[in-house]
């Protein structure tokens, strides 16, 4: 059985793209969430092996959601997938315990390698 992934992004376009890249590689999409609040709830409910997390979202942003998840589950594997490629955000994410930081738009290989590395 493939590793289970939770995809968090407010854009259907990105959720579909990540799903279309990861499913053929044998990953199972455990669920999808469209904002940070939903991400935290779905993480508790689904206990995925990895989360791909956007940053700019309504309700609760991805950095706050990652902080909440990692506070309760320090071993959670989260990679940020965001258009905001600023150095401070990258550093803040790494300090939180996030495993990787993928800047949109991305090539399929980039997301596959980030997911595989985080799950290794």
């Amino acid at each position, binding site marked *: 059985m493939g590793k289970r992934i939770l995809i968090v992004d407010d*854009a*259907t*376009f*990105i959720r*579909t793209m990540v799903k279309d890249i990861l499913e053929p590689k044998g990953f199972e999409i455990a669920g999808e969430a469209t904002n940070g609040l939903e991400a935290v709830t779905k993480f508790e409910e689904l206990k995925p092996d990895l989360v791909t997390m956007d940053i700019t979202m309504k309700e609760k942003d991805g950095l706050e959601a990652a902080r909440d998840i990692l506070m309760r589950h320090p071993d959670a594997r989260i990679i940020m997938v965001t*258009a*905001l490629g600023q150095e401070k955000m990258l550093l803040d994410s790494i300090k939180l315990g996030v495993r990787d930081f993928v800047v*949109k738009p991305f090539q399929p290989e980039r997301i596959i390698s980030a997911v595989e590395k985080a799950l290794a």
Partner: protein
Amino acid sequence: MKINAKYVNPFIEAGMNVIKQIAGIEVRRGHLSYKQQPEPSYGVSIIIGVYGFLTGQVVYSMQTEVAERLVERMLGGKSPQERKIMFVDTLGELANMITGNATAILNSNKDLSLKITTPAIATGSNLSINLIPKPTLVLGLYTQYGPVEISVALEEQETLHELDEMSSVLREV
């Protein structure tokens, strides 16, 4: 009011790179012009707020046909029905990626960050209510389908401080 052309170049660079990568088409840089406030020229507009050491809005505007062709390129194998459902979402994500990439170029300082809002899409005459009146630099990007206009209405935070100070002085007087 300070409006600095150096804040526009990152949007040109990011716009050209993102459209080329995500839609797989060439983009040419067009002319630059000035307006008193954002006044999008075409029927479809995507508005994104920026806040941090720069504050304001960036508005992307294009004709409906251009928007439809870009979405078609971005959604590759999807059916016309799926493209219709995802139209607004996909355009919003295109604007989000251009703005996000531009903030990374604008902000090379490790200690500062620029945040952006989720995109708002507007069509036709209901647009003006969503726009903040600020001096705007407008740049055109030309694709094979038609132009994509980017209106950058950003001001430096220190300018806001100066205005605040000026207002307090005026209130005191």
